[in-house]
């Protein structure tokens, strides 16, 4: 295994680099797949590793999208006038302006999203269990509604960003690699992060918060930091999405609570909560299923997706990794396997 591991990672990296050339028709699809992987991995940081199931992580996606766009525009033009004209012809960006604006925008999108998470966390982390889920969901819906009433950033119409300067196909590759680089960085970070004492502390919070606190862990600080790190990556991903989509509006694209906001949770559940690879495998699985149903079930795709969510949650909640772990425990080395406690029923 130890010899095979670097070979495996190198092969994977080669595949990631080569993928858009192997599947040239699916470049945008592959970029979206990376988005799903990033969102699923960041969701798992709080949901799987810390036991705080957020339904509102989409808030950072939307916030990142808006921050990146506003920063990118504001270094050249007045934002209010720009959004008023709604991408009218007079507003041109040179390639330098475009890339500097985007770079600055993405950086600020990450930093400010993390700050938003930190501030909101002070209030929201007072809730436990389902109340945290409802509270975060409420925050995300409210954010979308408030932004759609904010005329300075385009109101309900949203923002139309400049198009990628240069060849259309090169633009597609550019966004694919942007997402891919971010995803790989996130993966390497999490691979290290989950081995630290810090991760052990957030796992302790998941398993029993009262005991963790009694052991001297400053739980709120750990929760805030973890959520802020997750929000940092989600914010950047949202910013990239904004530039990739060119035009976005608040309710259906940026703060899409019932689409992407739930999809990322389902990805994690499909793959397996609280594992490094689970969210990635789940995201790939979910994205493939979603695209197939989108193409072949005209009109019924949403029903199928809803059914997939219900079936995953009700019948298959441990996900693929959980299922594998119960079938082939030896593959997981010395991992201790615990079955979920079913209260009130005798052990089988």
């Amino acid at each position, binding site marked *: 295994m130890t010899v095979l591991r670097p070979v495996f990672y190198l092969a994977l990296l080669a595949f990631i680099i080569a993928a858009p050339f192997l599947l040239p028709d699916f470049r945008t699809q592959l970029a979206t797949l990376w988005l799903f992987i990033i969102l699923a991995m960041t969701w798992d940081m709080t949901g799987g590793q810390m036991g705080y*199931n957020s*339904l509102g992580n989409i808030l950072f996606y939307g916030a990142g999208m808006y921050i990146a766009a506003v920063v990118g525009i504001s270094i050249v033009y007045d934002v209010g006038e720009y959004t008023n004209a709604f991408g009218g012809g007079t507003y041109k960006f040179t390639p330098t302006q475009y890339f500097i604006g985007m770079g600055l925008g993405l950086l600020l999108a990450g930093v400010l999203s993390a700050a938003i998470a930190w501030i909101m966390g002070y*209030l929201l982390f*007072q*809730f*436990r*269990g*389902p*109340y945290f*889920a*409802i*509270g975060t969901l*409420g*925050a995300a*819906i*409210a954010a979308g*509604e*408030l932004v*759609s*009433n904010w005329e300075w950033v385009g109101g309900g119409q949203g923002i139309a960003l400049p198009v990628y300067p240069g060849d259309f196909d090169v633009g597609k590759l550019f966004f694919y690699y942007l997402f891919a680089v971010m995803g790989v960085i996130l993966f390497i970070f999490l691979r290290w992060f989950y081995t630290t004492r810090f991760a052990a502390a957030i796992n302790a919070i998941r398993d029993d918060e009262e005991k963790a606190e009694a052991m001297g862990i400053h739980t709120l600080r750990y929760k805030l930091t973890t959520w802020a790190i997750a929000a940092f990556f989600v914010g950047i991903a949202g910013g990239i999405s904004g530039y990739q989509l060119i035009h976005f509006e608040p309710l259906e694209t940026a703060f899409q609570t*019932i689409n992407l906001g*739930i999809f990322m*949770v*389902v990805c994690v*559940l499909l793959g397996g909560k609280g594992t490094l690879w689970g969210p990635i495998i789940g995201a790939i699985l979910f994205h493939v299923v979603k695209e197939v149903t989108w193409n072949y079930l005209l*009109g*019924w795709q*949403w*029903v199928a*997706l*809803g*059914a*997939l*969510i*219900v079936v995953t*949650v*009700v*019948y298959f*909640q441990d996900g693929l990794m959980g299922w594998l772990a119960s079938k082939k425990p030896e593959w997981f080395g010395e991992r201790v396997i615990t079955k*979920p406690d*079913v*209260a*009130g*029923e005798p052990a089988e």
Partner: protein
Amino acid sequence: MDQIIGNIGLLFEFPVVNLKIIIDGIMIGALFALSAYGLALVWGVMNVKNLAQGDFVIAGGYVAWSMANVGIHPFIGIPAAFVVMWGIGWLTYKLVIKRVIERDLFTSLLATFGLAIMFAQILNLMFGSDTQSIDLGYATLHLGPGGFIDVPISKLIGVVVALSLAFGVILFMKRSRMGQAIRATAQDARAARVLGIDTDKVYAFTFSLNSAICGAAGAIIVMAWVIQPFYGITYSVRAFVIVTAAGLGNLPGVIAAGLGIGALEQYGAHIFGIGYQQAIAVLLLLLVLFIRLLQQRRNRQVLQ
């Protein structure tokens, strides 16, 4: 900002505006209360947070609407929606809810979210995405100085039906054998089982009752307001606000909270503009959660 101050000034300059807002709020609030009604039971008895609540309401509305289309009087549509949604609720319980009761609460939240998406989309495929309503053809009363306050008779009937149904359910819970069994299960499910109550039956009954009440609420809404396949989430959000504010299983509290939230929301819409109505409803939810949290704090407990 000037507009907001102007709107607030209007409230003091013409006190009758307040009355109009409150009456409007109570009329819609009664329906919010009715859609939250079953949730208070389901949440309290079986600890399931049903995010598909609003979609049950809308589905009931479509039952009454399609019956009115073939010429059946809308008033018959209310009991019909009650019965049909009872069946759908029972089916939902057997297929999905039964399997999430004993699991952690996030599971039920997410599973019902999936259900909500399915319901909304199936309704959309069956009836299209246009807004629909039944026109009863009743007059509108003009009350107050200069006939300033409009009270459509259809809405008035809706409120009366909603409130009588609500009181009927309270009586049922107090007097009937099943009502007693439901309350016993809510207090301690295991003890209830030991004493010979078939809790599975109680759960199935509670969830079906919830769905049926929602259906009746929808049938009333389609007469006095409008429905659309994707309006479900608005009623779900309000139902959550109301139940969280009233406390689980507290039915009279649900009525009071429903009327109060209806009025508050109308005030918010008047002051900040109609575009903020949804945002206000959601922010009210967060506010109620925090007030609950502060109450729990006094006992050094967390909201769980």
